[in-house]
């Protein structure tokens, strides 16, 4: 019903609707130039770059350690995973060993951060659909995570917690206790969300069968994360390209082959449960020991060559390509951000959709604009 036949339209039969750069549904400064035929989208062109800060050039002017805080400024919702990616590539280049306890704490914080990121997405997504209340519940739950992470990292959003080879700070007993309480609470809350949101008839009607992304499209655009998994692609860097201690943990990768917005919704909801499982396991088998390696080079100087590391952030595959010339600064640092590719397919996929469905579809892609613009 929502797909109209794309007939040839004369230019005077359409009008251009400028969605953004200031628009409630774009969650930031993203602009989509939509050519509309009534309420149907005839063509769309995404315009990026409104908060482009040239992070990649900054990497060339800063030492490796100085560049770490930039990672929190890319994806402000899952900054921990970006920390992890950057630490991983530098450790790989310099051959720094990470102590086991540090690896476990890294995964613990990344998964907590993933839940908080998905909570923001859930709230904002249902807000895009016109339901305001889940946003408040989500932010209420997220507050617990932020408090927990603040107590060990010192910041609430733009974390700079990872160090090359280890961490800034060890976790303490109140943090562990608080996390245990949070996990218990979150299971209950997820049941409540299932009642409030998942089973809602209006939500299902608006999401089922809308915003179709097939596997070929994912491959052509390089979509990753829940967007790919919602299209039946079993791809998660944590499993496909194991890093850190993920191979030792027992968790599933939720995959749904619905290809529509509802499939992506279900995948993210299930991912929160899996993250909780990971957290529970880590709390159960957290080893004792140091959190920083005994020997670590004073000045980080990776040997010349190029290196790559990928991690799974809340939004997908975040890759860093580091080209080193042996100096104190990176010669070239490429940040491959997941939403950049995920958003790219919006232009093609939204053709022929109603504007209301297209914006719900955009919400299901889980955009974080600073990460796209870098």
């Amino acid at each position, binding site marked *: 019903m929502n797909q109209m036949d794309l007939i040839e339209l004369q230019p005077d039969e359409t009008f251009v609707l400028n969605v953004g750069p200031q628009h409630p549904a774009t969650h930031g400064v993203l602009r989509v130039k939509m050519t509309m035929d009534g309420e149907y989208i005839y063509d769309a062109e995404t315009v990026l770059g409104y908060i482009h800060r040239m992070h990649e050039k900054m990497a060339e002017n800063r030492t490796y350690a100085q560049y770490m805080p930039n990672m929190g400024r890319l994806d402000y919702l899952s900054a921990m995973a970006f920390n992890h990616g950057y630490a991983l590539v530098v450790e790989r280049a310099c051959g720094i060993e990470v102590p086991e306890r540090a690896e476990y704490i890294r995964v613990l914080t990344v998964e907590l951060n993933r839940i908080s990121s998905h909570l923001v997405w859930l709230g904002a997504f249902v807000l895009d659909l016109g*339901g305001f209340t889940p946003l408040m519940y989500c932010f209420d739950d997220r507050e617990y995570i932020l408090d927990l992470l603040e107590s060990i990292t010192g910041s609430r959003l733009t974390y700079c917690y990872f160090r090359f080879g280890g961490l800034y700070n060890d976790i303490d007993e109140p943090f562990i206790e608080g996390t245990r309480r949070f996990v218990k609470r979150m299971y209950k809350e997820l049941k409540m969300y299932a009642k409030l949101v998942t089973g809602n008839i209006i939500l299902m009607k608006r999401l089922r069968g809308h915003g179709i992304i097939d596997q070929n499209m994912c491959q052509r655009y390089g979509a990753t994360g829940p967007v790919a998994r919602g299209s039946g692609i079993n791809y998660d860097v944590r499993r496909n390209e194991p890093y850190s201690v993920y191979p030792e943990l027992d968790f599933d990768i939720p995959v749904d082959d619905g290809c529509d917005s509802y499939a992506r919704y279900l995948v993210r909801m299930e991912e929160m449960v899996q993250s909780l499982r990971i957290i529970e396991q880590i709390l159960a088998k957290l080893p004792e020991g140091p959190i920083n390696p005994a020997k670590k080079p004073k000045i980080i100087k990776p040997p010349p060559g190029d290196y790559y590391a990928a991690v799974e952030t809340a939004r997908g595959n975040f890759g860093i390509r580091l080209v080193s010339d042996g100096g104190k600064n990176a010669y070239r640092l490429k940040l491959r951000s997941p939403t950049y590719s995920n958003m790219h397919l919006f232009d093609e996929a939204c053709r022929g959709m109603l504007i209301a469905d297209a914006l719900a579809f955009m919400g299901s892609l889980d955009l974080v604009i600073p990460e796209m613009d870098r």
Partner: protein
Amino acid sequence: MELSLLNAFIAVFIAIAFVGANAAYLVWWERKGAGFFQRRPGPTENGPWGLLQPPLDGIKLMTKQLLIPGGVDKAIFMVAPVLAMFPALVSFVTIPFSSSIQAHTIEVGVLLIFAFAALGSMSLLVAGWSSRNKYAMISSIRAVSQTVAYEIPLLITTITVVLIAGSLELSEIAAAQMGGIWNWYIWPFQKSAGFNIFMPISFMIMFICSVAETNRAPFDLGEAESELVAGFHTEYSSMGFGLFFMGEYANIVIGACLITILFLGGWACPFGDLGFFPFTHHVGWFLLKLYLIIFVFVWIRWTFPRTTIYGLLNLSWQYMIPLSLFNLLLTAALIKVFA
């Protein structure tokens, strides 16, 4: 009641005051309700329980600059918010709050309310059209097609009730439901309705249509803020926006009043005529029912996500209109047979 100029003046004044106070304090009620549903306190800062919030909001809105964007159709742009508020005010004249409290008894009160409700959608149309904004334009087109789609089942359902009560006068419709909760038209197997078992469905249709007619969530497609920014009032600031806002709440009150009178017995006490107990037929019962219904409106708004425009129109044209037509015919036939 003899209609003198003074009488009419006082009546209209009270109606306006009632609408104004309601519109202002329904905002407070809505925000408190939203806070209740969202695990937060809602407004608390100004006055006890934030009770001073609405007048302060009003002052804020009035002292703001009324921006008129370049290139708009200025006269129509200015008229639209007045058009939104005015019909809601006038409709109150016909609403009977009890057997004695009614600004003016009009034999065709129901028709008057619907006539002015149609004028309300006119204000959305001209506001969207004159704003010179594509979002406002889309929104006003939506709002009008929505009002047209929902006025039809609303009217048909009202006619069903009018058939049963045998009058177009609101106070007589309410008076016909006196004598206890079992006499209200919401229940099936009313003797006066010819034992029609579909009356609850009629009530549901009436309720859904009122929500849609007043552009409330989940049918607030006219001002779908995640799609159309703010819909038809995107370009309005200051009291222009304030009037739209108050008009919306006044319309909610009217919708709830209609439901109360047509299906819930108006000011009738749910326990029948208890001769020894005062206040059995009192305006208090009316207001209680009224605010209960408004509370349900608020509840729905903060629970459901928004539908889409085609979903909304399909619901009306494919389900509500055939159902309400069927019920009208059935009621007419049953009344012919039994009553």
